[in-house]
């Protein structure tokens, strides 16, 4: 039998105003095992904790129940206090009589009665608690960054500068990400490549940073401080060590009809290619789907022209396995597919483009060498219409419910750049709202309107109709003037919603990092822990967490780096002792538990057991408590009840149920 002390907190008047705390203390004294009960103004205060410590010592308490605020607030506080008094911290349970009682009920009698029941449940549970001891696990001093865009690069640089090894895994043949596709950046209009490329070079040259491009994370196991990750390095068919990056192979490659991913499919590239001139590493890859050698077995031109002898058609995908202490997700975004938006005629007309495509058109290295022209006939446009919120802030399931955040600013940028370079082009922007909070942002937008004469119309575009004369008829509404607008345009640019990179869900599942319905990774706390995933050891950098622009991304990248560094700086971590355990005499060895374990924490071994005199070798489940995170999925899957969860055992939970229902 336990000797339990109950401590009822007034929380000033937060609890005491609606709950008769004295009565709660008095009533709990009648419960089995309770040998001490008292109430106090603020249990979490130094003096309150002293009371707990004193009672533990004086009355030889073996269990403590604190009736107070949510365990999410002060469970740790009270556990530490108990530990100071020499009691195992896991012998403390909290009855939440504030958030779950005093704050939501008005009637004192009712609230007091409920508080007593909640206390009774906690007492019933403590009666079955057993001391638990957290384990220790080591920290591998190496970080993995998934994604080599500006977010990943910045995080990598910051962690590497602190002295830790960092690996970047990027699925494309080069790092650089979306930012490398941009022409200019708002609100300063400096050249994107000019500010990104030095960072790329810095990362590739950093002795602590190891870049795996054309690679993907294949498998993740382990837990905070000790992840094991398999990385698939896709075969490039070009020897990274031998290639000099001369580019002759790309020039001579006879297959040049593959759509250029980097240029958003607006032009083509060769089958052996680097995505862009400043690619890092500057080593091409062979796209086997378009390579004649791979398709027909004939050709081999690249191999013939390569002076360095770097071409190797026999290369195979390679899996490398590495251990990491921390993982940063920086998987970025893509624009949504516009298949659900037939009204904008994106799939019908080449002159309806997305803003990201416009970036490529405006870029000197882009498909039109930086000339603004219609992709259908190469003519210079005279009328351009920009449509905002295409798929953003959408109330039905065609698009996204959220604001993509960056579109207002880049559209202002585009409008301004066009009006600056081609003053004869009329630019009209249809918008729902113009949202430009941020340093120098609104000023930027006002410049577009006031200085560059961009025509902003509050209203939505209902339809874009390609005309026989090659023009586009835009049907829109002007809400301020309350009239319908019909406008003939040469080009229509859609501010397409952004969404997290589609591959992120798979990665989140591998990392057991939680993800929301929009596929943005969830942060541990929306306000107080915005760069950490609720899954320990996983950090979030950039748009994978939510829409943001470049400065925000860079800031968050740094913050994620600091959090990762904080983890890597530790030598050891305490592990959660509330893990599953299997009773070997009840285990059937049926593998059902292992089938539902998200952490691969359950393995099986053949072992000799002595079951009340019957000695036999049995197949038994074994929980690796370092891997187990204590979700309890296995405990319910197990039909015999062999699998149980420490700290939330079957009997403990049933005792709570009984106490509440009595």
């Amino acid at each position, binding site marked *: 039998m336990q000797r339990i002390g109950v401590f009822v907190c007034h929380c000033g008047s937060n609890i005491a105003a609606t709950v008769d705390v004295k009565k709660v203390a008095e009533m709990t004294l*009648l419960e*089995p095992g309770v040998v001490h009960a008292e109430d106090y103004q603020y249990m979490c205060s130094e003096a309150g904790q002293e009371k707990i410590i004193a009672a533990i010592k004086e009355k030889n308490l073996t269990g403590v129940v604190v009736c107070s605020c949510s365990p999410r607030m002060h469970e740790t506080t009270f556990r530490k206090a108990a530990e100071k008094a020499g009691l195992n911290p896991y012998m403390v349970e909290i009855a939440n009589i504030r958030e779950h009682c005093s704050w939501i009920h008005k009637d004192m009698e009712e609230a007091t009665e409920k508080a007593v029941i909640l206390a009774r449940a906690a007492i019933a549970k403590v009666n079955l608690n057993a001391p638990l001891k957290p384990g220790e696990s080591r920290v591998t001093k190496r970080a993995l960054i998934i994604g080599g865009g500006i977010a990943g690069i910045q995080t990598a640089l910051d962690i590497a500068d602190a002295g830790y090894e960092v690996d970047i895994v990027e699925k494309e043949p080069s790092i650089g990400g979306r930012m490398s596709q941009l022409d200019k950046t708002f609100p300063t209009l400096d050249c994107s490549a000019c500010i990104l490329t030095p960072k790329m070079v810095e990362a590739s040259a950093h002795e602590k940073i190891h870049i795996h491009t054309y690679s993907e994370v294949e498998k993740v196991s382990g837990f905070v401080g000790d992840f094991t990750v398999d990385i698939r390095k896709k075969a490039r068919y070009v020897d990274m060590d031998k290639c000099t990056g001369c580019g002759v192979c790309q020039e001579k490659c006879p297959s040049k009809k593959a759509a250029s991913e980097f240029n958003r499919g607006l032009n083509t590239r060769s089958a052996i290619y680097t995505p862009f001139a400043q690619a890092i590493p500057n080593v091409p890859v062979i796209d086997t789907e378009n390579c004649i050698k791979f398709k027909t077995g004939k050709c081999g031109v690249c191999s013939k022209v390569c002076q360095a002898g770097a071409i190797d058609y026999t290369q195979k995908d390679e899996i490398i396995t590495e251990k990491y202490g921390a993982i940063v997700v920086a998987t970025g975004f893509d624009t949504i597919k516009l298949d659900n938006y037939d009204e904008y005629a994106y799939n019908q007309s080449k002159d309806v483009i997305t803003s990201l495509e416009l970036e490529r058109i405006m870029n000197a290295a882009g498909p039109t060498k930086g000339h603004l022209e219609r992709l259908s006939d190469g003519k210079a446009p005279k009328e351009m219409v920009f449509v905002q919120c295409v798929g953003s802030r959408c109330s039905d399931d065609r698009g996204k419910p959220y604001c993509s955040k960056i579109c207002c600013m880049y559209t202002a940028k585009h409008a301004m750049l066009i009006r600056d370079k081609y003053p004869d082009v009329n630019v009209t922007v249809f918008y729902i709202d113009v949202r430009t909070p941020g340093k120098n942002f609104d000023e930027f937008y006002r410049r577009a309107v006031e200085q560059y004469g961009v025509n902003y119309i509050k209203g939505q575009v209902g339809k874009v109709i390609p005309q026989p004369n090659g023009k586009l008829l835009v049907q829109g509404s002007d809400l301020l003037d309350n009239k319908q607008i019909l406008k003939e345009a040469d080009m229509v640019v859609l501010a397409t919603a952004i969404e997290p990179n589609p591959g992120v869900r798979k990665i989140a599942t591998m990392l057991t990092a939680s993800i929301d319905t929009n596929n943005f990774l969830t942060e541990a706390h929306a306000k107080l822990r915005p760069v950490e995933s609720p899954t320990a050891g996983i950090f979030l950098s950039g748009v994978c967490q939510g829409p943001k622009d470049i400065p925000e991304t860079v800031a968050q990248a740094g913050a994620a780096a600091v959090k990762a560094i904080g983890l890597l700086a530790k030598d050891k971590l305490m592990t959660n002792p509330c893990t599953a355990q299997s009773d070997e005499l009840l285990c059937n060895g049926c593998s059902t538990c292992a089938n539902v374990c998200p952490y691969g924490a359950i393995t099986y071994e053949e072992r000799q057991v002595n079951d*009340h*005199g*019957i000695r036999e070798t049995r197949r038994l489940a074994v929980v690796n408590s370092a891997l187990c995170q204590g979700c309890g999925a296995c405990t319910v899957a197990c039909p015999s009840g062999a699998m149980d969860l420490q700290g939330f055992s079957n009997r403990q939970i049933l005792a709570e149920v*009984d106490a509440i*229902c*009595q």
Partner: protein
Amino acid sequence: MYKIAKENLSALFRLIAESQELYLPVRTAEQVNFGVWREDAEVDLDTLKSVKSPKDAFFPQSENLYTCIKEGKKIQIEPEALKEQKFVVFGMKACDVQGVQVLDKVFLADPVDTFYAARRDHGTIVAMACHEPEESCFCKVFGIDCAEPAADVATWMVEGNLYWKSLTEKGEALTKDVESLLESADDADEKKVEDEKAAIRSIVEKLPYSNLSLEGWNGDALSEKFDSPLWEELYKPCLACGTCTFVCPTCQCYDIKDYNTGHGVKRYRCWDSCMYSDFTMMAHGNNRTSQMQRYRQRFMHKLVYFPANNDGMYSCVGCGRCVEKCPASLNIVKVIKAFQKQGGDK
């Protein structure tokens, strides 16, 4: 002897039930078991064997012994009241009546089981002769005459009439209570009953198990039977369920358990089966660790230990329920035969 027309039986039951509880074979969801008579109960006197024996009229499958009521840190104990009202069990067969005799040996011996004793004191047994015995019956092997059940009242169902003969004081008292519905039987009726008895006995002679020999099964056969290697073979198909035990009219083992009601504890006893792995489980474990031992226990108890302690009385009455119900088709007859065969082979 009295008689009552079959169609008047419900009036008889109603009359009995006016003054006391009446248990009798009732069909519920296609199965016949003894239950309390109610106006809407589907009484079934044609089915020879109820699934469960009627022993739970005297020894219920589950019965409360006492209740602990918790108030604060005080505990109050309320013993369960003993049976105080009279009741009638109607339609028991000779084997089941003998089953009660077996239970008497256990529960009425010192120390007397007061719960059982109170039920026995208040219960009147109206037995019925077995109109058409079945192939699983072997009561004759134990000297039971199913044509003439020895209870408080014996009855026969012949050609649309129930014939009624009280055999004890309790039987007389009950007869008096229901006299208004009974007619006196005449000589012709007596003759009919005698003919029925003869018919029953002649069928019994033809039953496949009637000539089963119990030779070698007695209180002195302990070590010979206990150590036989045959058990190792016999138990193998056993699924370790409690079907045989729970349908048996003589099995008397029970477990005592506590049920937490939230505001106290109810201590109750309930039937237990020696076939169960947790039977007589103690802190150190179980004293029978294998199913072979448990299986052996059941038959050793019925055919050796019980007679050893009860002047040769077997605690099997040949009702044949286990023969019909065992999921693996095992039964006491097969055990007896297996030993016989082995003896013959020697």
